[in-house]
């Protein structure tokens, strides 16, 4: 044999059989081990792993509610939601962030500014695995590019979200306010559950005041995701409750008109419907495009807006505190009559100046030569200062304070206008507290014609004017007109707190309205030029407020200084006088004279509200019926 040794083949065979038997047992034992292991995992611990498996794949996600829309009184959309595709990154999934950004930059254009903002947000506290937006408003090209390269970028997603859009933003920015990304402080205040999927919150104006109404309630969906968090299937969904759509008293046409009338100037217009308190127009010019703020304004844009000397971001209508000047005279007239310091018949001699005592300081009338013998009506119509110097001193600061408070000065009397300032209605207490000085009679003199310490916002002036138009009936100014859906606006409006201003002789109201009509229609009325040719009677009062000072370090060229040192032109009024539909306050900064500049603006608003718009509506209706007639 080849192997050269004696071999006992039978013994070798038996030996092998024994060894094979050992191996067979070995195999059976280990196989049983595997089977036991499977039994343990699949039968005994099945529940545990089923839970793990479900937890793996099923995730609860919040579904942000669509934000309520905002309409004007005629149903024109002023704030809507636009789908925007943004590029977001979940840093936990994306891996090395610098490398990811560099690779992304090779595919789509990313501005340095976006990167800067992204890095800033990266450092801010946030929920783990929450995505951070890198780039908003992706174009179709970029979306396609990202779709092709998607697999190369774990954690990078193109997300569609609804973003607030203001179609008439330049007109409405100050009236509506705007939404923006939720910041750190807001994050502490909001309900984290309800805002789980929401990225935006009302920052100012209506958007802020009605945040709760507009936001809605968050929804949920159970989604099946893969290991990389990509949603594959929605298993179960509880729909979000969309925010309520709201309608404002605001009239976009009047808002537009207001902007046209102030075109090229700086100023503010507030128009109120006296019967309802509804704010018809709330314009601060120049305006700005609030859409830029929604997704985050660029530093350069923001600097451009904030450093402009025209201060477009400044809401003059709510926060501009001006000396009201002569526009305060109708309210002063009410105070003087009701407090008994004067009567309708009383006349005074106006030599062109007023003196507290013989030989003392002369407080000048705007008319150097004086108005001669003049009564209250004439004093309002011709804006005689001396008459009001006199009654102011007679009343004293505390009486004036009492009456002017009742007109809503010195407080924010609005129901739902976020951010309205309260101006400054001085009193002797105030002066002692703030200036540590007693109230001097000279202070009363200045206050009588709306100068001195006295400051009011255009919104306050409009409110007080509406109170005159309502003959003392208080209707607080408000923006919210209606909530779309079943609920009434009253549910959401704060309580009204003011009591009617009842006079001892209520016919004094009619008298004061008469004096204001005289301003517009009287032979010597200061605004008679502005009222010429009107088909309706209006009541008004002009005003001119002195601009006191400029900050010393502000540098303007000579032309600029001259322009910006000019007086502010003011006008308040309502129309028609006997059945007021609209009350307005107009301020044109550095406009010069109230009669020549502000009063025609008021007239323009009256005409638009009382004649142009109704005529246009009628023409529309006619056009519609014509159209219907021809088709049938």
């Amino acid at each position, binding site marked *: 044999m*080849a*192997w*050269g*040794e*004696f*071999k*006992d*083949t039978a013994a*070798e*065979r038996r*030996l*092998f*059989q024994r*060894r*094979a038997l050992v*191996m*067979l047992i070995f*195999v*059976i034992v*280990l*196989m049983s*081990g*595997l*089977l036991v*292991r*499977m*039994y343990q*995992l*699949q*039968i005994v*611990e*099945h529940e*545990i*792993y*089923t839970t*793990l*498996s479900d937890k*793996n*794949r099923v995730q609860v996600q919040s579904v942000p509610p669509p934000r309520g829309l905002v309409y004007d009184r005629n149903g024109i959309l002023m704030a809507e939601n636009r789908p925007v595709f943004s590029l977001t990154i979940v840093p936990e999934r994306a891996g090395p962030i610098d490398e990811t950004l560099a690779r992304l930059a090779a595919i789509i254009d990313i501005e340095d500014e976006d990167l800067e903002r992204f890095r800033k947000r990266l450092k801010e506290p946030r929920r783990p695995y929450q995505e951070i937006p890198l780039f908003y408003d992706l174009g179709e090209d970029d979306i396609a590019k990202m779709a092709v390269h998607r697999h190369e970028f774990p954690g990078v997603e193109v997300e569609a979200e609804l973003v607030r859009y203001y179609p008439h933003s330049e007109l409405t920015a100050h009236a509506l306010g705007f939404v923006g990304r939720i910041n750190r402080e807001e994050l502490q205040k909001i309900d984290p559950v309800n805002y789980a999927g929401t990225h935006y919150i009302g920052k100012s104006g209506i958007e802020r005041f009605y945040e709760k109404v507009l936001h809605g309630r968050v929804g949920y969906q159970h989604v*099946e*995701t*893969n*290991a*990389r968090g990509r949603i*594959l299937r929605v298993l179960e969904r509880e729909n979000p409750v969309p925010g309520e759509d709201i309608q404002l008293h605001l009239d976009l046409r009047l808002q537009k008109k207001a902007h046209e009338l102030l075109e090229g100037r700086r100023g503010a217009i507030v128009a109120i419907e006296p019967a309802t308190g509804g704010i018809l127009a709330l314009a601060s010019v120049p305006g700005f495009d609030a859409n830029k703020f929604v997704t985050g304004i660029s530093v350069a844009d923001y600097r451009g807006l904030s450093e402009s000397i025209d201060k477009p971001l400044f809401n003059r209508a709510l926060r501009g505190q001006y000396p009201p000047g002569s526009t305060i005279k109708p309210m002063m007239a009410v105070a003087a009559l009701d407090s008994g310091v004067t009567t309708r018949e009383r006349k005074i001699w106006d030599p062109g100046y007023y003196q507290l005592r013989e030989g003392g300081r002369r407080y000048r009338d705007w008319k150097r030569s004086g108005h001669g013998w003049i009564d209250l009506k004439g004093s309002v119509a011709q804006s005689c200062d001396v008459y009001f110097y006199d009654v102011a001193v007679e009343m004293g600061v505390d009486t004036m304070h009492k009456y002017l408070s009742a007109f809503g000065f010195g407080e924010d009397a609005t129901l739902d206008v976020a951010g309205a300032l309260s101006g400054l209605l001085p009193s002797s207490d105030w002066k002692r507290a703030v200036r540590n000085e007693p109230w001097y009679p000279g202070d009363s003199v200045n206050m009588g014609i709306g100068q001195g310490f006295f400051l009011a916002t255009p919104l306050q002036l409009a409110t007080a004017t509406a109170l005159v138009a309502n003959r003392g009936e208080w209707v607080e100014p408000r923006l919210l007109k209606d909530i779309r859906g079943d609920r009434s606006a009253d549910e959401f409006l704060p309580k009204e707190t003011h009591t009617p201003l009842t006079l001892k002789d209520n016919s004094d109201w009619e008298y004061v309205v008469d004096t204001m009509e005289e301003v517009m229609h009287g032979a010597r009325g200061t605004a008679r030029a502005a009222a010429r040719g009107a088909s309706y009677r209006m009541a008004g009062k002009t005003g001119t407020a002195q601009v006191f000072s400029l900050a010393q370090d502000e540098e303007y060229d000579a032309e600029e200084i001259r322009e910006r040192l000019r007086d502010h032109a003011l006008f308040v009024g309502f129309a028609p006088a006997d059945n007021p539909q609209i009350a307005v306050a107009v301020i044109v900064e550095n406009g010069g004279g109230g009669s020549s500049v502000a009063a025609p603006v008021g007239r323009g608003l009256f005409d638009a509200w009382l004649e142009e718009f109704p005529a246009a509506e009628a023409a529309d209706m006619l056009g519609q019926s014509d159209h219907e007639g021809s088709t049938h």
Partner: protein
Amino acid sequence: MAMGNKLLGSQVNAGLGRTRSIWSILHIDPILLALLLALVGGGLFVLYSGADRNIEVVKAQGIRLAVAFVVMFVFAQLDPAVFRRWSPWLYILGLAGLVAVLLVGVGAKGAQRWLALPGLPRFQPSEFMKLVVPMMAAWYLSRYYLPPTFGRVMAGLIIVLLPMFLIVQQPDLGTSLLVGMAGIFVVFFAGMSWKLIVAFFGVVSVSAPLMWFFVMRDYQKQRVLTLLDPQSDPLGAGWNIIQSKTAIGSGGMDGKGWLQGTQSHLEFLPESHTDFIVAVLAEEFGFVGMLLLLTLYFLIILRCLYIAVTAQDSFGRLLAGALTMTFFIYVFVNIGMVSGLLPVVGVPLPLISYGGTSGVTLMSAFGVLMSIHTHRRMITA
């Protein structure tokens, strides 16, 4: 001689009929073939699911398996004597290949495992050694009477350890252990004394800590550590184990249904069509499916052990037994690793996992088994 062969063939197949059966002519064992086809066929279904319904993967695997069956068929035609004669030369060739790999090999991920010779397809000499090492050991030990003397056992172990050492240098610990295992089974079947076996295990258990500190690389240590406590690194090294156990456990008694496994289809389970494919099967077909799979493997092993026991000479017995046990070790290590009993060592599930050379190696081993079973000669008792 030819006459005797024929006669014996018909004796073996006596139950089937008097004339030599078609299987005998083809040198195919029909029972083993049927079991293998059942395994492979079922495997392709699982693979379709594991590869997330990618039919291309299934097609590629089908072609690869077809090639492997052809290789099996070719090997089955060769007389076992041919393997025996060629064993030393193949062994030397294999060692040369392993040395060449270390010198000029190519590879990826810090390991050189492939040899790319001009004019030849790329291949892994270590894969080749899985077959050749037990052949060589069987050749050497069956030359002498059995059980072998102590000296011959040692010589046999050196035959095994030499290629193991070379493969570890690549480094490829997993393959090295499998190759070693195949050789050691030969020594065991040859009749290595139990005393020696006990001593051997003693040496292994002493050397294990030494291995840990002096031989094992960090990634290998990591695998062992992760096995002991997968939760310690749930998103890194422990991820695979946690996800595969979750897949298996959530399958329950009868599974989630074919193509319904969420763990694998939602990409939680890594390597779902290669090393971890058994988790897909367990998830979708449950305990019942696993029972079926293990039964199939057990029947194959049983048949192969029968072939080994009935082989005519020592060489055939030793080789057949060792190849059978190597096959079993594959099955056990893979399922053990996927179910979290053993460390993750990168062993595919035989004939089901998607992938390269292992299918061909396995099927050539089955070819050798069939050759041993179907080539019979007259023996002078």
